[in-house]
Structures are given as C-alpha cells and as structure tokens.
C-alpha cells in the first residue's frame, strides 16, 4: 500500500476529495465504456467485407435529433459534475477555524521547509508535528520561489508563492507518519524537498511542542564544537536559540536531534550522515544551497559532536 496514495485518505480534506473523485471516476468510466464499446462495435460491424461489391454506402449527412441527444446528455452530466465539485471547493477552501484548531506558518525555501507555531513559540524545520483529531491550519508563505505542499493522504496540494500568502488545512484521523514532497518545480533539488508530517496523540504533541520551545541544550563537553560552529559561517544561515547563531537562510538547528532525517527527508539522522552532510552537502543533495564549509577532519568531528547534543 503506497504511503502517498490519493485513494487512502486519513484526513477530512483528503476524504472530501476522495468521495468526490469516486463520483467523477464512475461517470468517466461509464462514458468510456459506452463510447469505447460503440467504437469497437462500429469498427467490427462496418468494416469492409471481403466480398464487398465496391458500391458506396448510403450517404448520411446528419440528424438533428441525434445531435440534440448527444448535446443535451453531456450538458446534464457537466451540470452534475460541476455542482458536485463546486460544493467541495467551497467546503474545503472556506472551512472555518474551530475553537481548538492549531495555526502553523509554513515557509517554503529552496529546498527545505520551515515551520513556525506562533501560539506555541516553536520554530523548526522539515518535520511537521500536529495533534490527531484537530484541525491544523497551515499558512503558506515562500522565502524565494514557488513551492507546493503535498501530503496526499492528508489533503490536496496547495502552492507556496512568494508575496502571495496561501492557506490549507488538515484534520488527520489517525496518528502516524505521513509522507509527501514539494509539488511545484522550484529549482535543482526540487526532487528532494520531502515532507514528513508526524500526527501525534495530544499528549505526545504537547510534549513535543514544549521540548521544541525550549532553548538549545548547553553541554559543556562539546564546547569546542560549539566554538567551531560559532566561528565558521554556520551562524549566518542557521539559528540555535540561546546562542549567537541567528541566521534564517537555513533550517533552525536548535533541536536538530529531534528529527529523524536530514536535508528535508533525504537521509536518516545519524552521526555519520550528519558529519558527511556538513562535509559536503552535495554528496547527498547536489545543488542544495548549503556550501561545503571546508572544515578539517577534526573540526568536522567537533561540530558533529556539538550538533549531536541539540536534542
């Protein structure tokens, strides 16, 4: 079973779309079967026979009744499809906030996802956590070019366009990890701007949010690594809250170790991968906008050790 199938919805908007799609598919299938059958029939029945006498068949130039019949029937079908679709358009696009709905701001970047929870003072990247059974509204912005947020089992896709705020919402019914990826070509690494949405139980989500809102852990044992981090250009792009690093160009690293993957879902978050990523991101994601930092092997060890403490 594909984790990204549009026919396995587990959230209200995706379910509304799914129900509509059944109607649309049924009508399309019926039309196909009827017309294809007529085509096959006519090709077989009216083929020129071997014993053909060579005379031309009766020339029929048209028939008003027939034309009316096959005009009016499609018009009726169109009306049915239109009304069914319009109903879902309004229901999904104009869905109201509920009293416990959550607000998340999603900012698309080349080639990663920034998530801000204004009410909870959380800023994180690439892995979105939401509570189950709750309506979460995603306010979609972009820092650079066009992107699109598509997690098929949760909702249809909605684009992130600079200077054009957008919105979508999800209301997942079951906990679990939902996958997706950017669905609007945004440059070299569009293909690896993956989406991971963790739908947690209410308690798990609250715990996660509290942990994310806390400042970065300050572990003295990795002071050397922290120095490397702060004295190289890392702090120009990345934020580690409570430290000198407050760059916004790259993902927030305050709780990097709470994430299961690196590089927007590209590789799993292990010390080896982390070290290799810092050494040369292009090894995993050629064309990503993080340059190789030119660190020595010991610097790499130190920085990796430091980042590994950022739970």
């Amino acid at each position: 079973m594909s984790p990204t199938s549009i026919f396995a919805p587990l959230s209200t908007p995706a379910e509304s779309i799914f129900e509509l799609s059944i109607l649309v598919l049924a009508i399309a299938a019926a039309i196909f079967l009827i017309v294809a059958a007529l085509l096959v029939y006519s090709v077989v029945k009216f083929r020129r026979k071997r014993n053909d006498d060579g005379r031309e068949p009766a020339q029929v130039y048209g028939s008003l009744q027939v034309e009316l019949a096959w005009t009016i029937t499609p018009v009726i079908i169109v009306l049915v499809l239109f009304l069914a679709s319009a109903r879902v358009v309004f229901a999904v696009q104009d869905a109201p906030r509920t009293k416990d709905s959550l607000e998340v701001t999603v900012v698309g970047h080349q080639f990663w996802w920034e998530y801000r929870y204004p009410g909870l003072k959380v800023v994180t990247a690439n892995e979105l956590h939401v509570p189950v059974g709750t309506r979460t509204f995603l306010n979609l912005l972009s820092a650079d070019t066009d992107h699109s947020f598509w997690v098929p089992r949760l909702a249809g896709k909605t684009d992130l366009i600079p200077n054009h705020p957008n919105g979508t919402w999800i209301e997942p019914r079951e906990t679990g990890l939902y996958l997706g990826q950017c669905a609007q070509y945004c440059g070299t690494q569009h293909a690896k701007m993956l989406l991971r949405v963790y739908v947690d139980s209410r308690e798990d989500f609250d715990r996660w949010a509290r942990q994310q809102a806390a400042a970065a852990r300050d572990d003295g044992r990795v002071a050397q690594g922290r120095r490397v981090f702060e004295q190289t250009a890392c702090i120009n792009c990345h934020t580690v809250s409570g430290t000198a690093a407050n760059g916004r160009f790259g993902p927030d690293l305050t709780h990097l170790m709470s994430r299961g993957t690196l590089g927007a879902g590209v590789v799993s978050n292990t010390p080896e991968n982390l070290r290799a990523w810092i050494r040369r991101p292009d090894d995993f994601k050629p064309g990503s906008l993080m340059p190789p930092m030119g660190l020595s092997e010991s610097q790499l060890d130190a920085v990796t050790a430091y980042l590994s403490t950022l739970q």
Partner: protein
Amino acid sequence: MATTDVGWIDAGTRPRPLVDRLHEWVTTVDHKRLGLLYVGYGLLFLVIGGIEATILRLQLVRPHNGFVSPQVFNQMFTMHGTTMIFFVAMPLVFGFANYLVPLMIGARDMAFPRLNAFSFWLTAFSGLFLYFSFVGGFGLYGAGTAPDVGWFAYAPLTSKTFSPGHSTDYWTLALLVSGFGSIGTAINIIATIASMRCPGMTLGKMPLLVWLNLVMASLVILAVSPLTAAQIMLLVDRYLGGHFFDTQAGGSAVLWMHFFWVFGHPEVYVLVLPAFAFASEIIPVFSRKAMFGYPVMVAATVAIGFISMSVWAHHMFTVGMTSAGNTFFVLTTMAIAVPTGIKIFNWLATMWGGKIYFKAPMLFCIAFLFQFLIAGLTGVMMSSAPFDWQLGNSYFVVAHFHYVIVGGILFCIFAALYYWYPKVTGRMYSEALAKLHFWLFVIGFHLTFDSMHVPGLLGMPRRIYTYEPGRGWDTWNFLTTVGVVFQAAGVLAFVFNLVRSYVRGRPAGNDPWDAWTLEWSTTSPPPEYNYATVPVVKSRRPLWDLKHPEDPDWKYE
C-alpha cells in the same frame, strides 16, 4: 527558347547542380515547399525531443538512479517540453496548413508568400538559437547553458536572482522570435481562407480541415500575443531592472501564471484542432461516407475556440484563487468537454453504416478516437478542482497531456503523413511497413502512457529527477521507460518507410484513395501553380459530385 534551366520546366536534360536546388529551397515562397520545410523541421526536432525524453526516462527507470545529474535532468525536461511544443508540434501544424489549405480551397498559393517564407525562417532560426544554448555555455563568455526553468518558466524562478546567466534568456528569446513567426503564419492562413477561396466555395462549403485551420489561426493570434507580451515583460525584469514579476519588490508571480496560461491553454487547442482536421478528412474517406453533421462540427469548432479562451486558470487550481474563482474555471473547463465530445460522436457516426478500409491513415485515426476519448476523460477528472488538488502537478497530468499530444495529435499527424504522402511525393508508401509502425507505436504508447497515470495517483509529482523507493512508483516507472523502446522502433519503421517509398514506391496517380476534396484533382505532386484553371465548386465534396453526377452532394447540403 531560353538556355537557362527553369525549375520544374525541366526538359529532362542533366540534373541541376545541388547548389542551385538548395538555393531554390532556401529562397522559396511556394506554400508547398514551405509546408515541406516546416514538416521536415518538425520531424527532425521530433527525433531530438524524443532523445531528450529517452534521457528523462532512463534516469527515472528506477529510484535514486544516477544516469544524469539533477542539473542536466532539469535542462532535459525544459528542453523536451519547449522543443515538442514550439519546434515540433507548431511547425508540423503550420506545415500541413501551408501545404493543404491553398490546395483545398482551389487557390494557387497563400495570401502573402513572402511573409510565409519569412515566418518559416524566423521559426527555424529560433529553434537553432534555442539549441545553441547547449553549446554556448562552454568557453563563450556569457553565452550560458540550456534553460532549466520548465517549459512554462514560472516566476520568480526566471528572475535574475534565481536564474543567473543566460539560460533563461535562450528560452525567452527563442520563443519570442518564433512567436512572431507563428503570428505571421496565422495572419497568412486567415487572409488566405478569407480572400482566396475559389468560386462557389462559400464558408459553408469549405472542407472541415480549412475551417479547423481558420479557428486555429485565430487562436494563435489571440493566444501567442499574450505570451509575447509576457516575455517582453520578463526581459524588462531581467535586463532593465523592471518589477513585473519581481516578488521581492511587490511584483506578482501569479500574474506570470495568468499571462502564461492565457497563452498556454488555447495553445493546446492550436495543436489539437489541426489533428481534428486530419481526422475529419480521413475518417469519411476510409468509411466511404460523408462527414456526419458538418454544420455541427463547424459550430462545435467555433465553440471550442471561444470557450478555450476562458479556461486557462484550471492550470492554477492550487495557487490560492478564491473559491468563486476556482469554481468559475471548473465550469468553463467542463463546458468545453461538450463540443469536444460532440465531435467524437460525429466521427463515430461517420463510421457508422460505412465501409471501413483499414489502411494506415484510418488505423491511426481509429486509435486516435480511442485515445482521445481517454485523454478527454482524464481532463474532465482534472476539471473538478478538488480532484485536481490531488492530481495536479503530478504524473497524472503528465500522462494526460501526453495522451492528448501523442495519443491524439501525433497519431493524427502520422495518419495525415500517410494519407497525403502519395499526393506530396507521387508515390505510395509501403502499407506493410506502415502497419508495423502502427502496432509498434500503439504498444509502446500504451505501455508508456497508461502506466504513467498510476504514479500520479500514488503521489508522484512531476519534474523530479529522482524519487524515493517504497512509494509504489517503481514498477510503473520501469514500465513507462520500457515503452520508449517500442515507440522508437515504430518511428524507425516510419522514417524508413518514408525514405524507401520515395525512391521505390509505386506511382500513386492523382487520387489513390478515391477521395473527394480538391487536392485530389490535381497531379501528384501538384504543379507549382496547383491548378491550371481555377476550380469552381458547388458542394463540400467537389470530386464526389464529379464521380457521382447522378447523386451529387449539392442536392443534400
């Protein structure tokens, strides 16, 4: 008697030097030669675009493949799409229009022969210019590399910030120049049809091919111009510091989308209406019956032309238009399915009660009917905006539009190339080779494009150079790639057939198909002046009237 050779008044003495013959082709203003130049150009770029597609499919045959880098992949899909639309489909469409329209209306040439030549050479030059982008990047200062912004080049990806260098400029300038060529040809087609029909050929007596090309040309005028405007604006942004689409200065990325799709949607009707034209000429002849419902076919065509200008934002259902805005475009898009379906029914009714000859042109048209039906239905699925929120920008869309362009339009182009081959060359093609081409291509087409729908339904977006395993996409991508082999083999058989038959095909005579429109009344190939005396017609099928004087069409029309 002059001692210099004068073209076709060749008394059978030694052949003219190659240089002279090439010079004739380069300086020709004859609509037939320009038509052949356009078609030859389009077929050449079809092969090139096909190679680009093969590279894409080889990279996508399995997940995490390393056949090409992401940078090259992104250039490949951009160039593949741009090539196929602007330097394959448009030239083929204009080539056929050029060759056939004057012949079918009993005229001796197009209205503006020199404009005709100029338009062709503009298009030809701009295609070469676009391809120069591949070589221009290495060594030549500032010449850039091939564009990689996708064939619809969304802003702000195309701004100087995100596309430094000149790769985007190759895209913009090539299409700007070829757009002028397209508009020139469209003006020519309209003026020819309006002003040069032979006596008796009222608008209601023109062959359907002529009607469809008239509406197509009108759409070119109304649709290519907005693209021209948008490209000028993009150049102003990139080179004069303008802010039309500069989102960092308050400009709108969505505005580019609107302008592009105001062009982009009618453009697909520009491509498909001539395909309908071919089907409308071929199906009656090979069913031995007049076209069923000619007036309705004309009305449906005009309706499609008008409605097609109002559906463009169905390419933008996910960009955050209001619910009312989205709903409007749902309605117009669904509405256009009605006249389109009517056409399918009329073609079926033409076959109904007829005597169907399964020659290559008809085989390709029958496949077209089946495939275009499916393509239209997947289009209807996406016209339902909520369904499109899942299907849009995924491989489902890619499958849909290839179903239309390859399964619909290219199949009709193959049909037309076989149907008019005898007229153009004076020789019959090999029916056996043509059937081989047909079956290889049908198998390959369905293997590739039927399979391609499924990853879209399973969440695979378009324009990705690789994908994750474990999402259920792998097998379908593999099958999609396998189909390429059969299509390539089919095209090889096709090219071989065209070339071999030119040399060894049996002479065709004026009218090998026992057809009914004017072009079959002149020689194969036609003389440079087309008709010794200007024909006078009384019905839509002048040759039927001649062949059946006891039962002419004009009694029933």
